[in-house]
């Protein structure tokens, strides 16, 4: 079997471990069924294997470590969608995939099928260190300083069944990026890590702590800068040890690390972490260059060869075909190799459900990945799919292939690229349905020429204050609220997750669903009327403040 490009290749030891994990879970299911394990005891154990109980059925969340898959794995996900779910899967904002209609008794079989392709659902839920996320352009983007995937894999391994940190006060999310352009929302994670090259060639890390959205949105604060590679794991252990010992356990809404950091202040947190590091046997936690090299050796590197005229061919094709040109403008990113380009495939068709893909589409994506990008696929935290290494002179063929299965929507980073949580259609916590309003907004702005005209504008929709749709981070955010049994949406504006992370602020009173769609349309019209040349929505908002937008949004209400 050839080594997959882009992610760590399992060996026999890793496969034995996965088998042992499935056997363990089977035993737990059995003990639950014979009553030796109570439902309260079983719940955290099944959650740590990715199994939720939702409104209508079990949901299985499968881990896609740092968002990267190979085509064999993606095909398997398509098969699982077809055999065990309703023929589709849902890609999540943490680069994972969820199957929403799973039967408990099928779960061990599904896990065994996943293990055939070195996949699992470990730690995709529960109060433990969750699946680690990373930059969707890792190892491909021209602007990258350090490829974060090797260290993401180090973190995946280190956090797997960690003996000390598997029963934390609450869930714990880590993201790592190696680009100066933050594409992982580093400051909205429990720990966000930005890697850059150090003086000796080994990377150094800037570490943010205590960020997050949810009920209490907080922008993470810098804990350390310049942490050396050898001390990366020791530092993370120390941060988690302070949290495990002192994080609140009396109230699940106050249990995240951000609450502890806010309560004692980042300086006190830093002192506490330094006190731990001062007592730890640092040698024991040392991340050696040998260990990093051994893990790096299990990543295959794509052989990037392109004809000399690849760029010229693409330039000509763009000139000849305005539709293709529009897609290239919104859906591609500069590759580090001049003969290649990064293509983002939108899972946000106008009027569709953000992040959903049918088994037929999943299978087709796997074929296209084989044909155009070394069999490698990336899932983005904005619920889209990336082919990381496409030869420029073949990009148009890829686009034509995508068009055949309805995956050529030209709206990445535009108003149609909506992020939404599953909402009340699936989730027991939700107050409102996020999907129908996402579909209505998508349909309202279906015209991709209009989307291109509007430019960079991100809409995020959450069905409740737990904020799984990251509404605080949206340029326009929608929060579903329940008003005497009716679904309303509260509007926030000005949020952003990237560099210069900011929380959105409330624009005005919550509106019913249909009025919300109209209000957003007026708000966008207002922006188009007021913007100065080249200004994005956020820039116009910053320049003029809320008032003109508030007036526009609420004028007819």
């Amino acid at each position, binding site marked *: 079997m050839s080594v997959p490009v882009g992610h760590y290749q399992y*060996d026999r*030891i890793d496969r*034995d*471990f996965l088998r*042992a*994990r499935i*056997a*363990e879970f089977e*035993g*737990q299911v059995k*003990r639950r069924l014979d*009553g*030796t*394990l109570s439902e309260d*005891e079983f719940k*955290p*154990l099944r959650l740590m294997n990715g199994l939720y109980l939702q409104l209508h059925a079990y949901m299985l969340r499968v881990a896609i470590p740092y968002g990267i898959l190979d085509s064999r794995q993606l095909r398997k996900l398509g098969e699982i969608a077809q055999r065990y779910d309703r023929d589709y899967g849902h890609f999540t904002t943490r680069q994972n995939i969820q199957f929403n209609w799973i039967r408990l008794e099928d779960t061990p079989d599904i896990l065994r099928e996943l293990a055939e392709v070195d996949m699992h659902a470990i730690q995709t839920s529960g*109060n433990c260190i969750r699946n680690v996320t990373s930059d969707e352009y890792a190892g491909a983007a021209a602007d990258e300083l350090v490829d974060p995937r090797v260290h993401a894999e*180090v973190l995946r*391994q*280190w*956090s*797997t*069944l*960690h*003996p*000390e*940190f*598997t*029963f*934390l006060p609450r869930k714990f999310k880590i993201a790592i990026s190696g680009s100066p352009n933050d594409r992982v929302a580093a400051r909205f994670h429990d720990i966000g890590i930005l890697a850059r090259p150090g003086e000796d060639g080994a990377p150094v890390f800037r570490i943010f702590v205590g960020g997050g959205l949810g009920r209490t949105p907080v922008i993470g604060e810098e804990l350390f800068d310049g942490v050396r590679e050898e001390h990366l*794991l020791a530092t993370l252990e120390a941060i988690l*040890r302070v949290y*495990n*010992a002192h994080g609140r*356990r009396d109230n699940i809404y106050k249990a995240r690390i951000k609450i502890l950091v806010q309560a004692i202040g980042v300086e006190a947190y830093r002192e506490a972490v330094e006190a731990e590091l001062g*007592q*730890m*046997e640092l040698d*024991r*936690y040392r991340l050696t260059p040998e*260990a990093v090299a*051994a*893990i790096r*050796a*299990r990543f295959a590197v794509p052989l990037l060869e392109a004809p000399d005229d690849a760029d010229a061919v693409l330039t000509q094709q763009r000139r000849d075909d305005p539709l293709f040109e529009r897609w290239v403008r919104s859906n591609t990113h500069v590759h580090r190799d001049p003969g290649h380009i990064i293509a983002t495939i939108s899972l946000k068709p106008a009027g569709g459900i953000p992040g959903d893909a049918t088994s037929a589409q999943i299978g087709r994506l796997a074929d296209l990945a084989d044909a155009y990008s070394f069999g490698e696929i990336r899932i983005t935290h904005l619920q889209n799919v990336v082919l990381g290494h496409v030869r420029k002179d073949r990009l148009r063929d890829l686009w034509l292939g995508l068009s055949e299965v309805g995956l050529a929507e030209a709206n990445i980073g535009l108003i149609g690229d909506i992020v939404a949580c599953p909402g009340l259609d699936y989730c027991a916590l939700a107050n409102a349905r996020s999907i129908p309003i996402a579909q209505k907004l998508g349909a309202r702005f279906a015209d991709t020429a209009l989307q291109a005209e509007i430019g960079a504008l991100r809409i995020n929709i959450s069905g409740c204050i737990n904020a799984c749709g990251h509404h605080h981070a949206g340029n326009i955010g929608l929060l579903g609220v329940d008003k005497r049994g009716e679904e309303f949406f509260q509007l926030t504006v000005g949020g952003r997750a990237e560099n210069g992370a900011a929380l959105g602020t409330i624009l005005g009173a919550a509106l019913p669903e249909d009025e919300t769609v109209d209000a957003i349309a007026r708000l966008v019209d207002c922006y188009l009327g007021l913007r100065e040349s080249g200004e994005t929505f956020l820039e116009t908002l910053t320049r003029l403040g809320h008032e003109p937008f508030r007036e526009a949004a609420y004028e007819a209400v």
Partner: protein
Amino acid sequence: MKLFELGERTAQVHDVLVTVAELAERDDARAVLLESADDPALLRPYLNRLDLVVLRFPIFRDGRGFTQARELREYLRFSGEIRAEGHILPDQAAFLRRCGVDSVVLPKNGNGDPELWEKQLRQFPVAYQRSVLPERPVGPGLRVEEAS
């Protein structure tokens, strides 16, 4: 009370088990009970005379005991017995052992079946991070052999 040994060290039975607050007044106490909110560093003055530290888990989801055990072993160099009692699950056996816990008081329900504990200790051939135990590296990378 049924004890189960997770590792090499033989579990000791102690008649006198005191709280951290009582330690100062009880010169004869050789065993102390640590609640999950107690700071293990409070034991520092008494470590030489302590044979046993019992960590009480109020509920299996309260993972502070794991950090307490590691602190005792790693920071305080405690070389006596560490025991876990209270609401604990056999599914936690290897986690407890790898944090430095030697023995558990078996729960009085279905979770107290020693066979389940035995099985869990042998469940995983490998772990992906160092622990307080002297575990041998296996294969390249971070992995160590779980000693059972």
